[in-house]
C-alpha cells in the first residue's frame, strides 16, 4: 500500500515535469510554425559567406528582444539594431568628409528669415510595394510627429520647431516653422544617431505609432525604399537580404548609385567581449561593437586580416562624437566655486589615465566637442583663450595654489577641507562603460587630497537627471559639424530661442550672459561662419573661465573590421564616413563595401 502510493507520487512528479517541459516546448513550437510558414513562402535563399556581412551587435544577454519592432519611432525600438537601413533619409551627412549627400531629396532651400524650409525630392523613388515615394510621405511623417509629440522618438524635437509641413506638389514639400530654425535641415539629416526617418504614409496611416511594429515578413513589411528586405527576424538573429536585380531599387535603376555588393546582412547578438573576440579571430564575424584597446590589439595580432580605423596602430579607432567629461554639480558646496573645478582639472593626469586604462591608445579631450574637421576651425578660433585656460594641463601645483587661495587647507589625513572643516567629497557616478576610467580618476584625486570615489549604481541615470550627485562621468552628444551650437545648448539653463521643453542641464550651472549668447547662435544661420566664430569666442570666454565641467578623454570607436571577406571599410586613409555600422550612416558604408573574394 505504502509503496504504491510512493510510486503514485513519483509519477505525479514525473508527469508534472513533462507537462512543464512540454508547455515550454509548445511555445517554441509556435515559433517554429511561424518560421516554417516564412520559409515556405520566401525560403531563406542560399547566399555564400563571401557575400554575407556578419555583424555582432546588441541584444540582451545573447538574444534580441526587439526583433519584432521595425518602426523606429516607437520608443522600444532602436534604429541601431537594424531598422536604420530600412528608412532612407532626405540627406546624409558625413562628419569626417564634412559633406552633405543628397539622397531622397535633391536639394533644399530656406527662405530669407529661416522660417520656411523647402525640399525638392528626387523623382522615381518607389517603396518596396510599388507605391511611389512622394512629398505626402514626408509631410505625413513630420505632421504626425508634431501631433504625437512626447509619445514617440523625435516627437518633441520636431514639435518644437515645426508648425506644419505642406505638400506643394508630389515632389516638393514645404516645412513651416513657428520660430526661425536654421539648423533644422542639419538636424533631420542622417548623421551618427541623429536624424528623422521618413515613413510610408500608406502603411503608417491609422496605426498607433507607439506600438506599431511594421513587422510582417509575409506581407513584405517593413516597406522600404532601400535595396534591403527583411528575410528573418528572431531572438537569435536578424537576416536582411538585398534585392536581386538593380531594377528593384530606385538608385540602381536610375543609375544614381550601384547596387551594394553585400547580398546579405546577418545581425548576431552580442554576448560578451570574449566570445566576440573569438568570433572575429575565427572570421565568423566581419565587424562588431567596439572592443577595448587591449582586446582589439590582441585580436589583430591573432588575425592580421582584422583592421581598425587606424589599421594596426594605436589608437585603433576613430574619435566618436562623444567626448567624455567629469560633470560636477555646480549647485553643491565646493563645486559651486570655479577655482575648485579648475583645481580638479589640474589634478587629473590624463596621460596616466590613458596609459593605464587604454594602454596608451587614446587621446585627451580638449573641449566638449569632438575634434572633427568642420569643428576644428572653431577650436582654432579660441586658441588664444586656451593658452590662458589649458583644459588638459596636469599641474598639481597650480591646483593646490587655487585651493589654498580659495581658503582650503589639508586636514590631518591629507584631504582638502574648507574653512568650516568640510572635506571636498566627490562621489562620482557613471555607467558600466566608465568603469575602466572611473576608479582610476578617483585614485588620482585621492592622491591629491580630494576624497573621491566612483560607483556605477543601477539608478545612476535617475540620479543624474535629478541632480542627486556630486560628480558624474558623461559623454556630450552635442555638435558634430557646422558650429558648436548643439554643444553649447547643453550648458544653457534656459532658452528663449527654442520654445517648449529644454534639455536637462546636468551641470546645474547658470550664467545669463552665456544663455543670451547661445540663443543668438541658435538663430544664426550656418552660412555665416565669421559671426559664428565670433560668438563662439565670446561664449568660450565665459565658459573657459567658469569650467562647468572637466574634460577627460575622447571616446573612441575601436571597431574591428575583418578584411577576409570585405574590404573598403572606412579607415583613416579612406574616411568617407565614420565606421560605426549601427549609426544611421550605415547605408553609406554598405554602398562602398567591396568583396575580398
Amino acid at each position, binding site marked *: 500500500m505504502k509503496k504504491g502510493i510512493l510510486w503514485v507520487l513519483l509519477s505525479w512528479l514525473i508527469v508534472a515535469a513533462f507537462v512543464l517541459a512540454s508547455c515550454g516546448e509548445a511555445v517554441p513550437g509556435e515559433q*517554429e510554425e511561424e518560421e516554417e510558414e516564412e520559409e515556405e513562402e520566401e525560403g531563406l535563399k542560399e547566399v555564400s559567406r563571401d557575400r554575407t556581412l556578419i555583424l555582432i551587435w546588441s541584444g540582451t544577454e*545573447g538574444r534580441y528582444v526587439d526583433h519584432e*519592432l521595425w518602426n523606429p519611432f516607437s520608443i522600444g525600438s*532602436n534604429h541601431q539594431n537594424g531598422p536604420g537601413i530600412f528608412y532612407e533619409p532626405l540627406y546624409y551627412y558625413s562628419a569626417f568628409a564634412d559633406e552633405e549627400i543628397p539622397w531622397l531629396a535633391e536639394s533644399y532651400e530656406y527662405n530669407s528669415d529661416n522660417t520656411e524650409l523647402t525640399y525638392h525630392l528626387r523623382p522615381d523613388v518607389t517603396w518596396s510595394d510599388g507605391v511611389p515615394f512622394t512629398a505626402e510621405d514626408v509631410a505625413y511623417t513630420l505632421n504626425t510627429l508634431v501631433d504625437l509629440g512626447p509619445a514617440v522618438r523625435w516627437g518633441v524635437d520636431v514639435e518644437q520647431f515645426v508648425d506644419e509641413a505642406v505638400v506643394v506638389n508630389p515632389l516638393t514639400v514645404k516645412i513651416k516653422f513657428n520660430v526661425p530654425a536654421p539648423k533644422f535641415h542639419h538636424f533631420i539629416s542622417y548623421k551618427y544617431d*541623429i536624424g528623422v526617418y521618413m515613413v510610408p504614409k500608406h502603411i503608417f496611416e491609422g496605426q498607433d505609432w507607439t506600438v506599431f511594429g511594421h513587422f510582417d515578413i509575409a506581407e513584405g513589411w517593413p516597406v522600404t525604399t532601400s535595396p534591403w528586405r527583411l528575410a528573418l527576424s528572431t*531572438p537569435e538573429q536578424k537576416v536582411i537580404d538585398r534585392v536581386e536585380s538593380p531594377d528593384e531599387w530606385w538608385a540602381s535603376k536610375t543609375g544614381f548609385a550601384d547596387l551594394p555588393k553585400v547580398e546579405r546582412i*546577418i545581425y548576431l547578438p552580442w554576448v560578451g567581449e570574449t566570445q566576440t573576440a573569438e568570433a572575429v579571430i575565427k572570421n565568423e564575424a566581419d565587424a562588431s561593437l567596439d572592443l577595448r584597446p587591449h582586446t582589439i590589439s590582441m585580436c589583430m595580432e591573432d588575425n592580421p586580416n582584422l583592421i581598425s580605423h587606424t589599421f594596426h596602430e594605436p589608437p585603433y579607432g576613430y574619435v566618436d562624437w562623444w567626448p567624455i567629461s567629469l560633470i560636477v554639480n555646480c549647485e553643491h558646496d565646493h563645486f559651486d566655486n570655479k577655482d575648485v573645478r579648475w583645481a580638479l582639472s589640474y589634478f587629473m593626469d590624463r596621460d596616466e589615465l590613458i596609459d593605464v586604462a587604454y594602454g596608451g591608445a587614446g587621446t585627451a579631450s580638449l573641449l566638449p566637442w569632438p575634434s572633427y574637421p568642420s569643428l576644428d576651425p572653431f577650436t582654432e578660433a579660441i586658441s588664444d583663450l586656451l593658452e590662458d585656460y589649458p583644459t588638459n594641463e596636469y599641474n598639481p601645483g597650480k591646483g593646490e595654489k587655487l585651493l589654498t587661495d580659495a581658503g582650503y587647507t589639508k586636514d590631518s589625513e591629507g584631504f582638502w577641507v574648507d574653512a568650516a572643516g568640510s572635506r571636498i567629497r566627490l562621489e562620482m557616478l557613471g555607467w558600466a562603460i566608465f568603469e575602466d576610467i572611473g576608479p582610476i580618476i578617483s585614485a588620482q584625486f585621492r592622491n591629491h587630497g580630494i576624497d573621491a570615489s566612483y560607483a556605477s549604481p543601477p539608478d545612476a541615470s*535617475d540620479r543624474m537627471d535629478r541632480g542627486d550627485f556630486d560628480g558624474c562621468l558623461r559623454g556630450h552628444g552635442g555638435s558634430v559639424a557646422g558650429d558648436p551650437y548643439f554643444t553649447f545648448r547643453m550648458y544653457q539653463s534656459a532658452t528663449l530661442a527654442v520654445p517648449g521643453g529644454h534639455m536637462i542641464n546636468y551641470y546645474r550651472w547658470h550664467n545669463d550672459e552665456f544663455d543670451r549668447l547661445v540663443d543668438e547662435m541658435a538663430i544664426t544661420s550656418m552660412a555665416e561662419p565669421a559671426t559664428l566664430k565670433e560668438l563662439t569666442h565670446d561664449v568660450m570666454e565665459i565658459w573657459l573661465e567658469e569650467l562647468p565641467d572637466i574634460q577627460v578623454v575622447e571616446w573612441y570607436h575601436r571597431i574591428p573590421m575583418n578584411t577576409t571577406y570585405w574590404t573598403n571599410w572606412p579607415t583613416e586613409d579612406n574616411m568617407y564616413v565614420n565606421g560605426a555600422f549601427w549609426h544611421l550612416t550605415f547605408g553609406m558604408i554598405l554602398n562602398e563595401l567591396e568583396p575580398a573574394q
Partner: protein
Amino acid sequence: MKLDYIAKRFGIFLLVIWLALTVIFFLPRFSTQNPIREKMNQEMLRGGYVQVGMEQMIEEYESKFGLNKPLWEQYGTYLSDMGRLDFGYSIAHYPKTVKSMLSEGLPWSIGLLGMTTLIAFGVGSLLGALLAWRRAPQVLRYLFPPLLVLSAVPFYLLGLVLIFFLAFENSWFPLFGGYSPGTVTDWLSISFWGNVLHHSFLPALSMILAGIGLWALTMRGMMVTVQGEDYMTMAEAKGLKGSTLFFRYALRNSILPQVTSLVLALGHVVGGAVLVEVVFGYPGIGTTLYHAIREFDYFVIQGIILIVIVAIALGTFLLDVAYPLLDPRITYRRA
C-alpha cells in the same frame, strides 16, 4: 476530515501567494528610482543624444503605464491583473509584452535547470545512500572527499573554471549561449537538438557537479539515521536480501525529506539560476529577471515572480497533501 485538511492547506496556499505578491509589488516601488526615466536614459545612452523634452516623454509614458496613479489604485489594478494572468507590457522593452518575454526564456530555464536538478537529485541521492550503506562497495568511500569539495564550491565559479579548461583552452565546448549564434531554432531538427545539448553541457555539468554533492550528503545523513532504526535490524534478522533492504526499507524511509527539498528546488528552477545564465550567457528566464530588476521593470518582475511563486507554492501544497499518504506517522489531524 480529509477535505477539511485539504481546504485549509489550499487556503494557506492562496495566502502565501497573496503575501508574496504584495511583497513583490511594494519592494521595487520603495526605491525612488523611476523605470521610465531609466528607460529613456538607456535610449539616450545608446544614441548619445539627450532627447529634448525627455521630461515630457517621461510624463507621457508614466500615465500610459498608470504609474502616476496613487499607490493603492495601482495595487488594486495589479492584483486584478495578476488574477487574470494579464502581465501587461514590459516598461524597458515596450511595446514587448511580458508574456512574450516569458515564453522566450522559460523553456530554456525549465529545460536546463529542471533536467540538471532532477539528474543531480537522482544521482546524488543514490550516491549518498550508497555512501551510508555498510555493504556498499568500498571504492565509493573515495568519492566522499571530492563530493564534499564540489558541494562547497559556488557553482558559477565552478562554471568559470570549466569554461576556461574545456571551452577556452581546449575548444571542446562552446563558450556561451544556448545554441550557436545564427542557427535557426527548429525544435524538430535533430541537429538543432544536438547543438542545444552541446551548448548546455557545460552549464549542466557545473550545476550537476555542484548539486550532486549536496544531495548526496543530505541523503547520507538520512540513511545513517534510518540504518540505526530497530526495524532495519529486524528486517536484517529476517534474512532479507541486501538490495531489498536497501531499496524497500532504507531508501524508502529516508527519501521523504529529500523529496521535500526536491520540490522546493524544482520550484526555484523556474526562477532561473541567474548566475549560471550570466556566466554562460544562457538565454533563460534568470537573466531576463535580473535585467528587469536592474531596470526596475515592474511588470516583468511581477510576471516572472508570480510564476515562480505559484510553482513553488503549488509544489509545497501538493506535497503537503501527499505527505500523510506517504508517511502514516504524520496524520491529518492537527499536530
